[in-house]
């Protein structure tokens, strides 16, 4: 991880709501604004398109229209169609041209319309982007960022709901990142664009407009009511490979990321368990120290993710924790995850690991 993108004292939780001036290394004091995650992502691309001529943004429907989730709205108008443009519907092509552009010297930021549609690009990601530096001994690199909305909770059915992170965390040479809030989303996206490794940037779409805690039957809370919805307007980064302790606690370490951060918080509150919730933010490479320190403190651990359970990223987290904290563990590490089925449309909430199911898992982790 390059020094430049990793100011050592980076606060992992931004200051609370309201217009504030933040000091950032190498930047003057900044104005902040309340942003949704969509606005924060757009702002990150806007800032980077402005700062670096080599940044280009493209994907299906991202140009004139601004993307099906509107993350790139207005950017083509501002930066022109040779910096921000629509592509043919070909995920392998999108990643393939990004690799070529990266080899040339650009920093492509490409959108895959839904993470569920990334599979046609697998070969270009796994065999090409991730291995180019290695196989050419550093002669060519692929400094590309692949943004893709992931996760369920919007009745998207099996092809608009997937969380495919485990396919990527197994690929050496890739970075996999998943923010859980607007502040991190912007800071991590800028750090990803500046990073010289290929980055899979997963955006939990259920969080685009607010910190969804899994209570789908309750009214939606907007980001404007959450401290992490307060985002500096200009350039800043959130370091890669650095987890955030989202909620300190002493009884149970919860390893999670994306939407499940808020679901875990709800589960902790509702179960009354004093859980320390760690928002991993960067899934791979991973901030193992933060994890190990916490588990050594609490002696118990639960891993929560929305992706299907078996061979999911939770398996690696579980394996690592038992390897590094075995003698501190008082009970088996619990995994709470999506079931090992496709994401069904009508049974969405029976599939989704909501607060009740997560709380059950917490209780099991505490009981034994």
């Amino acid at each position, binding site marked *: 991880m390059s020094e430049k993108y990793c100011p050592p004292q980076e606060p992992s939780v931004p200051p609370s709501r309201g217009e504030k001036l933040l000091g950032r290394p190498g930047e003057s004091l900044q104005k902040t604004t309340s942003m949704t995650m969509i606005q924060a992502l757009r702002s990150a691309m806007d800032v980077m398109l402005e700062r670096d001529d080599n940044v280009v943004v493209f994907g299906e429907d991202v140009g*004139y229209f601004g993307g099906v989730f509107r993350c790139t709205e207005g950017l083509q108008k501002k930066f022109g169609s040779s910096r921000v443009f629509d592509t043919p519907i*070909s995920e*392998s092509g999108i990643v393939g041209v990004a690799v070529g552009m990266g080899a040339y010297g650009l920093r492509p930021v490409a959108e895959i319309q839904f993470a569920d549609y990334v599979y046609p690009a697998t070969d270009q990601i796994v065999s090409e982007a991730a291995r180019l530096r290695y196989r050419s001994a550093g002669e060519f690199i692929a400094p590309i960022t692949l943004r893709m909305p992931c996760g369920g909770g919007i009745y998207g059915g099996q092809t608009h709901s997937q969380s495919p992170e485990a396919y990527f965390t197994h690929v050496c040479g890739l970075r996999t990142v998943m923010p859980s809030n607007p502040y991190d989303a912007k800071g991590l996206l800028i750090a990803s664009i500046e990073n010289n490794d290929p980055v899979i940037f997963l955006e939990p779409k259920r969080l685009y407009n607010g910190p969804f805690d899994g209570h789908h039957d309750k009214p939606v809370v907007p980001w404007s009511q959450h401290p992490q919805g307060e985002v500096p307007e200009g350039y800043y980064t959130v370091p890669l490979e650095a987890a955030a302790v989202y909620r300190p606690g002493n009884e149970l370490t919860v390893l999670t990321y994306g939407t499940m951060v808020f679901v875990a918080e709800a589960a902790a509150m509702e179960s009354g368990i004093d859980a320390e919730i760690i928002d991993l933010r960067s899934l791979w490479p991973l901030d193992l120290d933060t994890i190990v320190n916490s588990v050594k403190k609490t002696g118990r651990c639960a891993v929560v993710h929305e992706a299907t359970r078996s061979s999911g990223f939770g398996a690696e987290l579980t394996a690592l924790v038992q390897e590094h904290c075995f003698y501190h563990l008082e009970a088996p590490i619990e995994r709470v995850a999506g079931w090992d089925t496709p994401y069904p449309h*009508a*049974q969405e909430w029976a599939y989704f690991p909501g607060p009740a199911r997560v709380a059950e898992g917490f209780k099991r982790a505490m009981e034994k």
Partner: protein
Amino acid sequence: MSKNAPACTPLRLHVPEPTGRPGQHTDFSYLHVTPAGATRRPPVDTQPAAIGDLAFALVRVLDADGNAVGPWAPQITPERLRFGLRAMLKTRIFDARMLIAQRQKKISFYMQCLGEEAISVAHALALDEGDMCFPTYRQQGLLMAREVPLVELICQLLSNQRDPLKGRQLPVLYSVRKAGFFSISGNLATQVVQAVGWGMAAAIKGDTKIASAWIGDGSTAEADFHTALVFAHVYRAPVIINVVNNQWAISTFQAIAGGEGTTFAARGIGSGIASLRVDGNDFLAVYAASRWAAERARCNLGPTLIEWVTYRAGGHSTSDDPTKYRPADDWKNFPLGDPLERLKQHLINIGAWSEEEHQSVQKELEAEVAAALKEAESYGSLADGHVHSAAEMFEDVYEEMPEHLRRQRQELGV
């Protein structure tokens, strides 16, 4: 290395744009519409290499007055045409009613095929029973032409307890095996190469059934489209590859899929596949071209690629607002008109239809759709929670449920 470069200006990126954006008027001359009857009809056993020109032409039968002209005018009884018009009408009425149901939040999502009804309905008439269609989400006309009970379809749309797909698929992603309608994937283009595989299987088994695959203009950019052409050509698979060029792929114009300065039909030329470009809003042309292609396939003459030129008159889906990226009145100016109106005019011309009959059939079908919706709603909906049980979520992942899924089902307590 020496200096070879001619004195050229700096390079620049070309990014295609449609001729009309909101507030403008689209110049449709890029379609190169030719008069009805002008394009030749070669015998079905002509070598693909000898008919490359047809991929750049336009097969049309119905002229501006609704008369059938030229070599492609098919042999088809007025009875079948009346059935076709009725099926198109039913499709349109069904779409309109389901769109309302979605706005009323009865259905979670919907996709209509407004303006494209002729393509799937006439094609269905040109196929045989047992032929297998591999559709996208915009071929509901196949289901109407094959008279699948509406209640069944609406139960899928409502994701209710009688949804044949058990609530697992988004609305419109039907699977109706008995009607030769393959399960629709949410992933674009994947089914085209599967159709080729199905056709190869039919050939391996010495069957007489053929496959017909569907793909949108935008989706032809996906790799699987190419793969399908390559395999279809190499093994002379008995398959029809239908490219529905409705000019748009969500917000992107067909030129972003590679339609600029060429045609989608032309994609078949390089692969040695017989390729036609056809007026998709001309019921008779669709029927005639489909028959030609089906005959080729069935006689071991190999695959045919057909580009159907049409226009997506509605939004991409109920999540889409097309006025954001194209002129609101675009369809009105589309030079190939409305397929329903055109067939209706033809039937009236040949004395097989009338305004009065049209009105009464329309009313009848509206009533039929309304009744079907009502019945289907009586079986519940996603909105009211009357869906398939959570336990069923764990079924059909494998043929028999493995231990780990049993454990998970127990954990859920269902």
